[in-house]
Structures are given as structure tokens and as C-alpha cells.
């Protein structure tokens, strides 16, 4: 059985932590990732850049409508994810606008965080 473990946390809290505290949590994440990887149960893990880098795509009446910022409404629920490797944000936006749920729901695009290999 495959599962997605989705992480929700307040960005503001992170920004207010001291450098030492951030380093400690970062190391904790690294240790956890290594443990999971060694267990052979990890399929993929991807930390994301903060929501200030997000773009939300909606397709309405055949027109792609991008919005600056993260997905913000609560009447829709997270239904799945695609991780794509494309040239730039334009290409990511083009693929996002083709997702069927873009026509009624919203697709949030977030860059993956650039972290050194485990």
C-alpha cells in the first residue's frame, strides 16, 4: 500500500525561530529522511519552497487564469500531486492548466526546495 504523508506547518513560526533552532529541526528532518530511506520504504520526499513563491492556476471557460500566491480556499481538498521536471515556471503553468481539475478546482504550483542530496 502506498501513502502520501503531507506536512502542514505554519511558515511564520519557522521564520521566527532562531538559526540554531532551525538548524536543529533541519538535522532532525535529515535524520528522519535517512532512517526512512534506509528502511527501503521511501518512494520520494520533496521539501517545498515557501508559499511566497507559489502560483495558483485555474482554467475557466477555456482560459488559464494564474494567481500570484498559494491556494487559499477551504471548500476544496487536496486530491493528489504531480511532481514534474520542466524548464521553467511557464512550462509548469502550461502542464498545470491541463490537469482536469484545473477547470473546476485549483492547481497550486510550488517549486521544490533546492537541498543537497541525502
Amino acid at each position: 500500500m502506498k501513502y502520501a504523508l503531507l506536512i502542514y506547518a505554519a511558515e511564520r513560526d519557522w521564520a521566527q525561530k532562531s538559526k540554531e533552532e532551525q538548524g536543529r529541526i533541519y538535522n532532525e528532518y535529515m535524520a528522519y529522511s535517512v532512517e526512512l530511506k534506509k528502511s527501503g520504504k521511501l518512494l520520494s520526499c520533496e521539501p517545498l519552497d515557501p508559499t511566497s513563491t507559489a502560483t495558483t492556476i485555474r482554467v475557466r471557460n477555456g482560459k488559464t487564469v494564474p494567481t500570484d500566491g498559494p491556494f487559499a480556499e477551504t471548500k476544496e481538498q487536496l486530491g493528489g500531486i504531480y511532481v514534474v521536471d520542466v524548464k521553467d515556471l511557464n512550462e509548469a503553468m502550461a502542464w498545470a492548466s491541463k490537469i482536469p481539475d484545473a477547470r473546476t478546482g485549483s492547481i497550486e504550483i510550488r517549486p521544490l526546495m533546492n537541498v543537497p542530496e541525502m
Partner: protein
Amino acid sequence: MTQTARSLDRIFRAESGPVLATLIRILGDFQLAEDALQDAFTAALETWSKDGLPASPGAWLTTTARRKAVDRLRHLRIVEARRSELALSIRLDQEAHGSQDELEVSPVPEDQLRLIFTCCHLALSRGAQVALTVRTLGGLSIAEIARAFLVNEATVAQRVARAKQKIARAHIPYEIPDRDSLAPRLDAVLSVLYLVFNEGYLATSRGPLVRGDLVADALRLARGLSALLPDEPEPMGLLALMLLHDSRREARVSDEGDLVLLDDQDRTKWKRPQIEEGAQLVEKALRMGRPGPYQIQGAIAAVHAEAATAADTDWRQIAVLYNQLLRYERTPVIELNRAVAVSFAESPVEALRLLEGVERAGALEHYAPFHLARADMFRRLARSDEARESYRRALQFASNDQVRRFIERRLNGADVESRAKGLV
């Protein structure tokens, strides 16, 4: 400021957009480019006041900034991977130009187009697009932007910083969009430029200096855009529209600082060469056979500008153009403008009938010009009571002192008129 400092400031302002645009391409990083340009300005202050101006200040600044960027890269505390990425970008550029470190690099006009499309990328909010465009291409300081748009400095600074961060981290490409995606991307650029222009042109209550800067920047950028996209009629239409509006700048505010309506403006104060250029550009754009909202608005402005007196205005032509414009943008304000044209081309009765739908929808209930227009129509029909009522509503919603004074004058006039009638 001394004479030299002033003239250097002028040069920095004029060169900063083009130089920055080229630096961002070479360095592949907004922030590094801006920092390096600041370094180059500091170096220029010292060198130029000693040795005089170089033959090409733009090339001098670009070359120096590139060298400063290499210095900065050595000392910058960034992830090693990012450092080598940036260093590679600089090396590739040098190889492409077959040059060693010291060869002069000049700003490339196409880079400004890249920069404007990046600043106005659809993944950035309109506020961010505007702030970033006037900051990077207009060379306005954060403080100046804050004053011009009535936003506090911290907000502007944060907006610009966030936008730059998003461009870098979300990989918004630094390129001119291809044919397939040009139309929506160009729309965003044109909207931003027109917004910058209007902010400078319409806001009469702010300092004249910044206002003039915004108008000048918007005009310069629109001119550059239409020169770099000569096959696109809409940038040309926008440039024409701006030139035609701006040609009336001197006439639209009285010596006392009051707003003067188009009808009452002293047309000898209109700048003729600018009107001629604007009108020619509209014609040239329309001949390309791909009309659009800016060309049509430009054409409307041209019809107004070409009338020797207000009474000579070809309202029939203007009504036709507004009908066309409604096909692109069906907004209540454009419907209002069409009705005003119809009120002169046909009759105020017909115009009031056209406005019934708008009135029912209530979209312009809080919009003073709507009540003002209706008041004028009633006045011309000698329906004084309704005219007075509309003037009062206009007064209620007028946000600007000049407009309020204008309405009060009219209201007094209307009262005089009805009293005079009462005596007969």
C-alpha cells in the same frame, strides 16, 4: 546637490533600466545584478567626477558592474551550487562574446523587453508587476514609488523583494514570450504601462515631480515596447493613447488648480506635435488590420484632439468607436462613455435610455462621473429638478476637491437657471 551630482543622477536614472536589463541576462540573478549596478554607480561617482564622462556611460556601467559582480560572487555567502551556476552564466556570456574580462559590454535593447515581460509575468500580482516595473525599468526609488502610489514604503519594499525572490526561486524565465503565448503576456505588460501612466496623469493631488516621472517613464517604456515589437499594433495604440492624453496636460488643470473639462479646455494649450504623432500612430496601427482596445481608445482620443473646438467634435465617430470598444471590454464605465457620445451624436434622451441598464445594475451608483454625466444630460433637456438631484449625488461621491468645486459651480448654475425659469 551640486551641478555634477545632478547631472550624474540624471545619467544614472536614464541608464539604470537598460543596464540592469542586460546585467540580469548576463548574471542570471536579479539581486546580484542590482547590487553590482549599485557598485558600478559608486565607482562612476568617483571616476567620472575625476576623469569626466566616458564615451558611452551605459557600456561603462555595464562593464564595471559585470566586474563588480564577479568580485561579489567571490565574497558572497551563498550555496556553492548557486555560486558555480552564476559564475557559469558570466563565463558563458563572455565566451559568447569572445571576450576576456575587460572587454566592454553594452546594454542590449532586447534585454529591456525581456525584463519588462519578466516584471509583468502573469504569476506575479498586479501590484508586484507595477512596483517591479517602475523600480527596475523606470529607476524609481522605493520611496518615490511609495509616494506615487500612496502606499507605505515598507509595503513597496516588501512587494519588490518578494517578487524578486519569486522570480528567482520559482524560475520565472527571463525571455520574450513566443508567438503562442504572446497575446496574454502582452496584455499584462500594456495594462501595467497604462496603469503607471494614469497614476501619473490623473493624480493631480500629488507632487508634480514624481507624477511627471511616472508619465515620462510610461511613455518611454511604451515607445521602447512598440519599437521592439513593430508588428504588434496594440503597443503602438497604447503609445498613441498616452501621447494624445498627455498632449492636453497643460490645459486640463486651471491656474487655480481646478480640473478643466475637455469642453472648456483652452485648445491652444494642447501640444500639437504630440497630437500629430499620436494620430499618425493610431492610423498606422489600425492599418495592420488587427484592432484592439488600446488602438480604439487611441482613435477616440485622436478624434477629440483633432476637433478645433468642442462643438466641432465628431461625436458620431466617437459613438461608433465606443460601440467597437464594448466588444472587447463590456464595462459600465465604457457604457457610460458611449452614452455621453450618443447624447451629442443623437440626443440626451437616447443616451439616458442607454444608461437605464447601467442604472438598474447599480454598478456606477458610487461613481461620481456617472451622476455628473446624467446631470449634464438632464440639464441639456431643461429637466432642472432631475439635473439638480444628479449633481447632488455626484457631489456625494466625488472623491476629489477639484471635481467637488466643479460640481458646486454647476449646482449653483443650475439653481440660477431654474430660478430664472421660475421668474418667467
